[in-house]
């Protein structure tokens, strides 16, 4: 099982290519927000960038909080999302400790699915898919 990580964010130039790629390729949207990875500053451009993305919690508090099963635990961490089951209650976003779930104006949640489609769009190799064992042990794979 693979998960997305952002181990080299000190290299980030803030181009937002990753979040635009996620919105475009995964969610079929053009947006800074409706994406599973979102790039923010923390006090202006001079302080660098941070990636708001799912840390692949195991167990995932967002899945535990979801009252309808729209968010379900993913093996190796993170969640499997079934939008058809979602009632837009926002409990997932509230439960996430790292603000990784974005709710659009209707309350629809957007979260990283750990698919890795953003990774090749990062020009500085900030992002990396790593393989994790079911028990949560991490094993690095070549990018």
């Amino acid at each position, binding site marked *: 099982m693979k998960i997305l990580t952002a181990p080299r964010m000190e290299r980030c*130039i*803030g*181009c*937002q*290519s990753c979040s*635009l790629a996620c*919105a*475009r*390729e995964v969610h*079929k*949207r*053009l*947006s*800074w*927000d*409706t994406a599973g990875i*979102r*790039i*923010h*500053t*923390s*006090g*202006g*451009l*001079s302080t660098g*960038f941070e990636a708001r993305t799912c840390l692949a919690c195991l167990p995932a508090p967002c899945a535990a909080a979801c009252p309808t099963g729209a968010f379900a635990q993913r093996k190796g961490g993170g969640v499997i999302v079934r939008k058809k089951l979602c009632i837009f209650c926002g409990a997932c976003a509230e439960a996430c400790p790292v603000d990784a779930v974005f709710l*659009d*104006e209707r309350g629809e949640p957007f979260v990283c699915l750990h698919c890795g489609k953003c990774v090749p*769009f*990062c*020009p*500085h190799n900030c992002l990396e898919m790593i393989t994790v064992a079911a028990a949560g042990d991490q094993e690095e794979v070549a990018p």
Partner: protein
Amino acid sequence: MIRDYFRVLKVDLATGRGQVETLEGRDLFVGGSGLAALLFQKYGKLAAPWDDPEQPLIFAIGPLTGYFPLMSKTVMGFKSPYHNQYAESHAGGRSALALRFADYDALVITGQASRPSVLAVGSRHLKVHEAAYLWGMDVVTVGKFLRRKTPGAGHRSIIRIGPAGENRAAIAGINVDTYRHFGRLGGGAALGAKNLKAIVIQGDGSFPLPAGPEYAKLFADVHKQLTQTRMMQKYHNLGTPANVALLNDKQALPIRNLQQTSAPEIAGITGERFAEDALLRNVACAGCPVGCIHLGYVRLRFHADHRYYFRQVGYDHEPIFAVGAMLGVTNCADVLQLIDMTEKMGLDVMSAGVALAWATEAAANGHISEQETVVPLTFGGTKTYEEALRHLALGSTDFYRLLAQGTATAAAHYGGQDYACVLGQEMAGYATGEVFFVSQALGFRHSHLDSGGYAFDQKHEDRTVETALAFLLQEERSRVLLTSLVVCLFAREVYQDSLVAACLHSLGYGTLADRMDTAAQQIQQQRWHLRLATGFDPQQIRIPKRFLEVRTWKGPIDPAFLETLRQRYAEAIIDLAGVAPAV
């Protein structure tokens, strides 16, 4: 959002209210430069002065903004405080994508706020906040306050002015997201005259994309070209400062108010030297994987007990030329310190540097004295230049207030016009020869990027008026299409016509894709029409004597070639405008 019309937010600062308007004309005016011209024609007061409260400030993006990489620029259209004519200035940062995600093709600001204000817009909000407490603050400080007051870190654009803009200096720029600018032709004063300290655009919208895999595939192809080939390497490696050494080697770098075009001490401020000694990191405009913005650091000791503070300062060829080479400042740290001061004060660094270079020579020649300059201006004097920049922004004396209206204005009063390095506005950092001098002097934005005359000088050994004229006109036409889309001109080699057409087709702009040439021609004409209708007479533009004294790798300037090209280009511009210059 993809649409075959324009969606424009028009805000009246006097009432604090706005309205969303829809305009036809996508296939004619495209967006960016074309849309700004369309909107100025609609809302601009051609005969009224630049600071008439009703004059619009227009910020326009294009049909490809945000949809493809490096479609990351915003075009500002306004009546310029510098020459009281229609003008454009371009900036990146996050401004373009923020406007896209706020779901506007353009933002038009009219009226004057009764008190200093901040305009905040997004896809679901519009508010004019009174902000008298921000007035007088430098650009860095006001940025910190606005970050605290507004949501959306990283997904917004904070556009603001410093003291220079508040004081209506015609060489005041507008800072965009700390490291980018609507720098030239006095945009900062245009905001200042409206009592508008800042604009915060939050990009909080989300839009559907075309069905099918074609669009995403084309995006990936373009992204690959931009990141996995060498095409953009020069921009993210040394960046534009690579030009410093190249031009110095060619005897084409303006040094010490263009008294020289090459000097050994320039070795201290080359792109290579900056990269080794001062480069901290790179950042990018939103939607651009190239990351051409080079940030250097300045470490300043403020106490004997090894107490320091540091600042991150963006550098490029043009600022290095303007407050480095032109002022005889040949140390990276000193150049960054001067750039930093222009940033804080909200000055256009190019105009400010060239203006002080003229003042330095004027002081040496006795046209002005320390009574005017307050501090003794000498080439290489970083500390006094730092103070002079502050005086220039604050308008401390009559002299600095006049100089802040432009070097030519000050020279007309004090003397020294022959060595005022003005080509429509203070020169850009290229002393490559006749074609560049004419292209900037007459160019629409008085920018080296209008038509790339500097490239012609470097690629052609011959001096043929017909060839040069055809190059300038064609280059301007192709670039005006790019600035209507709106693509960063650094990507002009990637976005050839066929790729632009493919991009437009992929988003459903097929009609526009099939008539790009015609649209470009019409926009070129429309821009010149507006420029002449607001007072520009290209035949009245003169090129100061100093430019004729330049000696490049090609030898001395050919005055006859320069003069003939100037006349022919002026005639061609009048033909394009389709209107006689206003008297």
